[in-house]
């Protein structure tokens, strides 16, 4: 959980929430929870909703957050998985239990071979995925991106252009802690 601690530590040092400077950024998850509780309590006592402080953190699962999207809590929003490889981009929308709802990719859009690994193809895949998801009744979605490919940014853009509301972006790129040995280096 070192990268989690480091990520939370870096976010604590960012000047997003003004009274974070009083907390020592020990980079422990509990300190992030306490900070968010303080932010939430200060935000809930504010009179108008627009003056609530926006935190870059997501609502952690052990906490009561007052944010709702379309009447749903953060944990119950459907998830759009985007797998952006170097040759293709797959988009799959599932609900929070993991049940599959919509699946599109650059290949299903009619692109072939080298054109699948382009940002334009990813954008069209995103638009069509958003259209199909709207038919199923999905409006707010949290995005999980996997991989560093050309379609990483443009597929999220395609989702927003198609009409879905993106609530949060997570990066789930698989980083092995020295697991399988990758293929040999290319010599060009």
């Amino acid at each position, binding site marked *: *959980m070192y*990268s*989690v601690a*480091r*990520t*939370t530590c*870096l*976010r604590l040092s960012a000047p997003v929430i003004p009274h974070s400077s009083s907390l020592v950024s020990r980079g422990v*998850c509990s300190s992030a929870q306490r900070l968010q509780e303080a932010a939430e309590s200060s935000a809930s006592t504010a009179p108008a909703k627009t003056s609530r402080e*926006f*935190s*870059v*953190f*997501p609502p*952690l*699962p052990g906490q009561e957050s007052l944010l709702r999207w379309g009447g749903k809590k*953060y*944990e119950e929003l459907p998830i759009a998985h985007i797998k952006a490889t170097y040759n293709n981009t797959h988009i799959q929308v599932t609900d929070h239990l993991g049940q599959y709802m919509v699946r599109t990719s650059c290949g299903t859009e009619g692109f072939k071979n080298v054109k699948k690994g382009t940002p334009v193809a990813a954008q069209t895949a995103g638009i069509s995925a958003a259209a199909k998801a709207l038919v199923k009744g999905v409006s707010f979605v*949290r995005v999980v991106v996997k991989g*560093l490919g050309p379609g990483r*940014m443009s597929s*999220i*853009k395609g989702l*927003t252009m198609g009409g879905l*509301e*993106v*609530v*949060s*972006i*997570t*990066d*789930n*790129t*698989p*980083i*092995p802690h020295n697991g399988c*040995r*990758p*293929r*040999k*280096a*290319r010599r060009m």
Partner: protein
Amino acid sequence: MANHLKFVARTVMVQNGNVDTAYKTLNRILTTDGIVDEAKRRRYYEKPCRRRQRENYEACRRIYSMQMGEKISFLMRRNRQDPWAGC
């Protein structure tokens, strides 16, 4: 990531529909954490000899750039007492 809690780390909330700013924030966090570099490096295998050469090079470069930064900030000081006071 199946063994860790999901949606806790490497997550950025989108404010007012600014997906671009949220994506840029996420990218900045990932690069400062070194995750983007590591993902690129692990695409192909890096032999131990190449890895040692790279670490050496990065250490030397880090030392050089930090010392150069200190030198530049020393030379660009503005708030010091007037050296020609009294003339």
